[in-house]
């Protein structure tokens, strides 16, 4: 049975380095920090693989006013949280792309277009994509992002798809790759590797 791709939003802004998606209402688990997602690009010829590094909700005048209210009824509270006018935004870092059933571990040739659907990677896709760890340098080279936490969260998520001995092997392999790339900064390396420990 084919796994269902959960749609988590639509592209609102994008560049080669990543894209921003918007959703009216987030699911309990999606989008989440460190989740793998993909968005269609090149008129459906490729899928940009992204890693969600930020989820934000902009304020609006109405919310600000309501926040000052003495008390809110449950109805008012639910109405404001679920019947939203301002969408929840999430930002994803491009860490590769898929074209002709092949994963490529570099920046995509084109970004997705606006309103392109953003879907979460299925566990099988995540597993296939993370067979190689060549996406780690793209995460580490991203400027002004919480890359260490993002890396840990992404790798832990990828590890969840594996069981028992394979999970440990994957985490060790990932730890070694991080060590190879971060050996100049032992403090950072220590935080990342400790974050991978089960």
């Amino acid at each position: 049975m084919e796994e269902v791709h959960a749609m988590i939003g639509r592209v609102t802004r994008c560049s080669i380095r990543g894209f921003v998606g918007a959703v009216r209402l987030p699911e309990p688990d999606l989008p989440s920090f460190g989740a793998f997602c993909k968005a269609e690009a090149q008129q459906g010829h490729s899928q940009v693989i992204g890693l969600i590094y930020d989820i934000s909700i902009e304020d609006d005048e109405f919310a600000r006013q309501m926040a000052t209210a003495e008390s809110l009824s449950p109805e008012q509270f639910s109405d404001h949280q679920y019947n939203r006018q301002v969408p929840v935004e999430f930002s994803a870092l491009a860490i590769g792309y898929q074209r002709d059933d092949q994963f490529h571990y570099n920046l995509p040739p084109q970004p997705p277009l606006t309103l392109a659907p953003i879907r979460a990677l299925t566990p099988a896709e995540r597993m296939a994509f993370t067979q190689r760890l060549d996406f780690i340098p793209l995460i580490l080279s991203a400027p002004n992002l919480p890359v260490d936490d993002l890396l840990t969260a992404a790798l832990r998520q990828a590890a969840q798809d594996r069981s028992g001995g394979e999970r440990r092997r994957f985490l060790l392999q990932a730890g070694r790759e991080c060590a190879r790339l971060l050996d100049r900064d032992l403090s950072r390396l220590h935080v990342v590797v400790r974050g991978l420990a089960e």
Partner: protein
Amino acid sequence: MIERSELEDILGPRVDEAPLGIVVGGSLSSGLQIKIDPRFSMEKLAVGRYVVIRGRQTSRRFFGIVTDIALDATNPDLVRRPPDLSEDFVLEVYSSEVAIGTLNVSLMLMLDEEQSEPRPVKTIPSHFSPTYEASAQDVECVFGEEDETHFYVGTPLDMEQVQVNIDLARFVERSSGVFGKSGTGKSFITRTVLTGIIKSGLAATLIFDMHNDYGWAVKDETGREFKGLRQLFPDGRVSVVTLDEDTSRARGSKIDRVLKIGYEQIEPEDVEMLSGLLGLSDVQTGALYYLRRTLGPSWIAKLLEIEKADEELQNLIESGRIVAGTLGAIQRKFEFFHRMGFLVPGRGDDAVEDIFLRLSNGTNVVLEFGNYGNTMAAYILVANYLTRRIHGRYVRQKNLASGGKADEPKPLVIVIEEAHKFLDPKIASHTIFGVIARELRKYNVTLLIVDQRPSGIDDEVMSQIGTRVTCLLDNEADIRAVFSGVSGASTLREVLARLDTRQQALILGHAVPMPVVIRTRDYDQSFYAAIGVTDESNLDDRAKMGIDSLYGE
């Protein structure tokens, strides 16, 4: 991707295809640096082991020996900030990428695809060439098989199925040395090598057996008895000559002759080497030549007042050529000769000629010193006395042979113990042993020196030593001396300093294609059997069978 080499068809498939590591740096002179693959346990490696490096750019294989093992880190801060021991995962990750192990490998030989014989190494493998632990086939390919001129002396460390065979023809071609602290098995390995030489018949040996270790049975410190060379070769290939008949007989040693040296046969040159031990000053040593010239062949007897010569001695003093004090001192110091029972008044016998003839016939001679072995002066006197004369005869015969008037003399190996007493830098240049060591095989005579203080041996002599068999040495000067004159061997220092105290030796030089650390061959019944010695009880059985078959039961 490394292509499969055709050499694998010759050498056989590898036991383990995973490389031990890869070449990351180094040079031909200082050795290569190999980064150990984290999958290998560096705690299981050891200096002295062999590795094979497959060149990435050619099909060449390089043979090397591990000379050092080191811990390294990609970040120097790791030394100051190691991870906590409780963090297993962190430790595991770090110990494969950040904390790394390296090997220092000294390259020895290389094997080209189209050649079957390894050659001395003249280049190095390129960066990232994979490095493997040498397999038994690799090592066998280097050391060849045992045959008439290759003798099995031991096995490489951790490769008990592989034989290290030394090339005896090359071993006797140049002077060789066996070094090691006392109690490390020098005598055993020397006896093993001598057995090989005698068995091969490539050279005759003259062994100055100071401690009665070679001729007849010898006991180790646990009281176990081992056969001597005369017992291993009961067919007459080994003669035992003794200086101390009583001790030899008491030990049950079978002896072929007793050596007596006549006072008249001793020349000042024989005594000169003893000047240090007897305490003869330069003036006194110089006076010996004058005394010999003026007093004639019986000069020692006259000085010892065995022969009456008061008047002659008085005349010497009165002529002013020698002062009374000097003469008196020489006479006092010569009292030593009285204590040497093998020195007899008169002309002595033809012992030198007899020994020379035995040696020229290919018979090996063990000269047992008996109790005189405890007297260094006696050992030096006799070794020097015999060697000078036998060398002289070899020189004569070799010269005659060059003129086509005689046969080429049989190569001779002279075995001396405590060699530093003969080859001390102060005297080596003018003693017969120094001469032999330096002239190489010019006159078919070479030395096998057995010593525990190689640092006491003249550098020039050490540099002429072709093959060095070295048991454990821990004195820095001795280690340095063993490696003097051997290019690139200094990297083997660590190997040498870490040998076991027993049954391990490093062999390097002329007789082996590359330096090798061996566990020396057991000197026991299996060794005797390999040499072809039958146990005496079996001999009795065979004798009985012979009698039965002759005369009926």
